[in-house]
């Protein structure tokens, strides 16, 4: 497995056609090789947009992004994307292709030999804890939500990407499966050492997975830091509120109990 790439985002700005307010504004960020960076923020804050600028699904209006020192604007977008793993919340498995064929897409695009692809598919399914013999020839409709998410992850890393982009990849499963997938993800990324950009609105997920957290609000970075730094020293009232929402829930529950006691 190749080492992760370095990603440097400089002054990135995105304004969607017809919008008056930019979705991303003057965003600067360096992601170290092999780092697991989690972008967290409320929905609509621009975190998915940031992720999608990296594989050029969304063009920048300002600034630049470089992967290992090469400006991505100078690369062929199709070739760029083949070198970047991509997993999305909706999973995006192609329903007309079997699990094996779904996982094999990028290796096929990269022109690997048939034997190498077959071996890679089986190894990946095993890596995400799906028995290749049982799952290789299934259709996505024959998978549970958690199994589909696993295949989604396997497909994203199939081409041995040096950069991995994940947009709420565990968004569509229940809490139990989700925490199981998070634990597995944690082990997996340690093994892969791929540079990972992971987007979520779930603060707990961010704290669990991240080497470093980037808090985004209204298209700007509110704070960057390790989970501990962000928790211990929130840089703004917004970050404080975001990360202590759980405390608020606890407080509410206590108040409700108190009220019942008083009645």
């Amino acid at each position, binding site marked *: 497995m190749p080492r992760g790439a370095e990603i440097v985002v400089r002054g990135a700005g995105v304004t969607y056609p017809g919008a008056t307010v930019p979705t991303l504004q003057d965003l600067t960020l360096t992601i170290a090789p092999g780092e697991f960076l989690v972008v967290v923020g409320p929905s609509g804050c621009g975190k998915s947009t940031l992720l999608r600028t990296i594989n050029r699904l969304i063009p920048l209006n300002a600034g630049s992004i470089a992967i290992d020192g090469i400006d991505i604007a100078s690369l062929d977008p199709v*070739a760029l*994307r083949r070198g970047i793993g991509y997993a999305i919340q909706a999973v995006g498995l192609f329903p007309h292709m079997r699990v094996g064929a779904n996982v094999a897409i990028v290796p096929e695009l990269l022109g690997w030999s048939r034997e190498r692809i077959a071996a890679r598919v089986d190894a990946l399914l095993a890596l995400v804890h799906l028995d290749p013999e049982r799952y290789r020839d299934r259709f996505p409709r024959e998978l549970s939500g958690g199994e589909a998410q696993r295949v989604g992850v396997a497909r994203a890393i199939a081409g041995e990407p040096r950069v991995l982009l994940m947009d709420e990849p565990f968004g569509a499963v229940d809490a139990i499966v989700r925490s199981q997938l998070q634990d597995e993800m944690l082990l997996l990324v340690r093994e892969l050492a791929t540079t990972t950009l992971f987007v979520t609105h779930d603060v707990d997920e961010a704290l669990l997975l991240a080497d470093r957290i980037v808090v985004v609000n209204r298209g700007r970075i509110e704070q960057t830091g390790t989970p501990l730094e962000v928790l211990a020293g929130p840089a703004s009232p917004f970050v404080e509120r975001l990360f202590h929402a759980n405390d608020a829930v606890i407080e509410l529950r206590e108040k409700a109990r108190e009220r019942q006691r008083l009645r």
Partner: protein
Amino acid sequence: MNYLIANPERVLRLAGTHAAMVAAALAVAVAVALPLGILSSRSPRLRPLLLGGLGAIYTIPSLALLALLVQLFGLGLAPVFIALVAYAQFMLVRNIDAGLRGVDPAMRDAAVGMGLSPRMQLLRVELPLALPVIVGGLRIAAIATIAIATLAGYVGGGGLGVLIFNGLALHNTGMIVAGSLGVSLLAVLVDGSLRWCERAVRTRLGG
């Protein structure tokens, strides 16, 4: 019924011509409709023009269109064939367009994000996912084509229409019944098999 019992091989032969004419017309129609449907699904500006234009052709009474085409191409198979291809366009293009535009945006996003070229996105993801709707359009077009192909009998193009129009001219009810029954039977048969195809591709997609 008498005519059918007395001349089974003639009815069968004409049914064969009818079916071959319909199959050939549909094949050409699909080949024309595919690029038009793809174009329409990609271009919001061209879509109303294309669908509006093809819809207008669709509303011309078939006998009137045929009369016009006979003026241009003479009697025989040619005018009928052109009419059939033209009529099928509306149903085919409309469904290809609807099927492609109905593809889940997440599928397109995944396909683009993984680095499929535009051509591959279309061939490997979008068209397969749109297939149930496209086959649905093909089914409707096939039934309409089978019916309209009857007019070939009127202008010397062959097929089961020959029995109907000759029967009308000769006041031979048995002949008319044989022709009509053949057309209906063919329509039911084709409808059934394409319905089966439609269901098969739909189940495959997990719908």
